[in-house]
């Protein structure tokens, strides 16, 4: 009996491993029309400023003091409407704006953008 169970198990696991290789989401390559730098210079800069200083008049927060990791998480949150079940997001306005910007072609890779912003703010 034990041998039988083991045999079933091993074959099932082997099948999954095989299946998983073909459908691994992480391997999906998304291509963007513009580079993160181009998006930043053409769009983000208008409200967030060339050095991430923000704009009190537009209630745009300062983002120049954030680390790469923090920037990445904020962008992730903005793009995904929060990252917790049913908790929502504190970025409601930017979430709306981001969706509009994506529709206009201003989409980008989150990690690349976070790194670009950090490097631009700390030149």
């Amino acid at each position, binding site marked *: 009996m034990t041998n039988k169970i083991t045999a079933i198990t091993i074959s099932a696991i082997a099948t999954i491993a095989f299946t998983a290789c073909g459908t691994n989401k992480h391997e999906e390559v998304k291509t963007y029309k513009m580079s993160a730098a181009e998006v930043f210079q053409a769009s983000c800069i208008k409200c967030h400023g060339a050095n991430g200083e923000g704009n009190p008049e537009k209630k745009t927060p300062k983002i120049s003091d954030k680390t790469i990791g923090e920037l990445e998480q904020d962008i992730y949150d903005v793009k995904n*409407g929060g990252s917790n079940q049913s908790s929502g997001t504190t970025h409601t306005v930017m979430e709306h704006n981001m969706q509009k910007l994506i529709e206009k072609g201003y989409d980008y890779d989150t990690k690349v953008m976070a790194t670009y912003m950090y490097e631009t703010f700390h030149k």
Partner: protein
Amino acid sequence: MKKNEILEEILKEVDKHPEIMSRREALKFLSVSPLAASLLAGTTVGTSAISASTVKGKIVIVGGGLAGMSTAARLNNTITNADITVIEPDPLSVSYQPGQTLVAGGIWDKSEIVYKRDDKLPSGVKLIKGSVTAFDPDNNKITVDSKEEISYDQLIIATGLTLNYGAIKGLSGEITSSTTDNAAVKEKVGVNGVHSIFFQDGAAATWDGIQELIAQAKAHTGEKKLQAVFTHPDTPIKCGGAPKKIMYLTHARLEEAGVRDKVELTFYANGKDMFGIPEYHEAILEQFKTRGFKWNYAHNLTGMDTDAKIATFNHHWTEKGAWDEDLEEFGVILKSENVNVAYDFIHITPPMKAHDVVGKSKIGSNAGWVPVQKESLQHVKYKNVWCLGDVAAVPMGKTGGSVRKQYKVLIDNMIASMEGKTTLPAAYGGYTVCPLITGIGTVMLAEFDWSQKPTPSFPLDPTKERWIWWLLKVYALKPMTAIGMLSGRA
């Protein structure tokens, strides 16, 4: 308990119900879930091989909950003659928190989920029974109980989070799930129809509350139904599924007592979804509809009048704003109003935050959580500071299932860093698991990661509620945690 014993226990239950599924089918299901498959593959309770390292350095772990103690155990197994210190003030810091839902549902007893800190301390690991009161990461030092300075080479933050009941007007107290000094919270929560499963005493009291609600429903006459309200706050929370699990269990118990038609069950969430992953969101919506639940999004609990039995919510929405030249679109403006809701029974999921001593220190951030590179779990500013578990600013990561992946990643990276390697070898992909209890005997096993897709990639619908996942939840996950993780091997 060996892995075969856990497996046999599940299969014994399966054998009792051949009309539901055969052993063969059960094994098929168990092998497709990444979590359950580890049970079969033997990585669950103590067989995974760990290669030894001879790195030197003083490692201090702040916090001795599941994350801290599991990390201590695995480091102890991994490093020869390791110098590890755990700092933890709470004698009951380690517990099986996922069991709190089952305690509240009247399925387990509270004693089944409480462990003693000192029993879970790996041998050879030093314990300081105190609280860190200051962090000085620029000088590699921390202060314990405002007097004792301790220096470190590597610092691991595993302090967990606090349940901030006091942030809701009319309630008070800020506690952890196991704090025994919880009198301030218990003054209003756990009595008089106000409940919360997020702390151990609260979970036990919730089961009394459900039984009271059943008794009330049995005596209830008139057209207006009794109102049972379930909340979800505006902060990240541990175990994101719990606010719904307790709703499903309350429903199941009311139905079992034959009084479901006397009570209306309504979910009030701050967000605008049931779940961040569309597939699971849709599945939960269907489950809500099938059970006759009501729901209101964009409602955040801000006040409680426990005498009048009124809950006050901040209801928020956006309206079209002025034309925005920069955006080349109309902007949005935020609107909100207070909404008062009368309840007979309310389950509160409190706002959660890092302990102020952590969140407001140099290792914290404006958002309160400890900012780490989310794949490597290394602090974004201090290269010898690491963080995991509930206090880490990692999306979706506040579950024991996340910690089970995180602690191995953290240790591999920390050791590589101690060995002077510049590239960190391990990456956390955001995997987490939410065994969403949808009834007594059914669970939807939601497994996912940052790709925002359900992770089981087999031709098996992951959004289905299944009995086999209930068996996994009730029989396997506790030994997986208590024996596997706390020995640093699962």
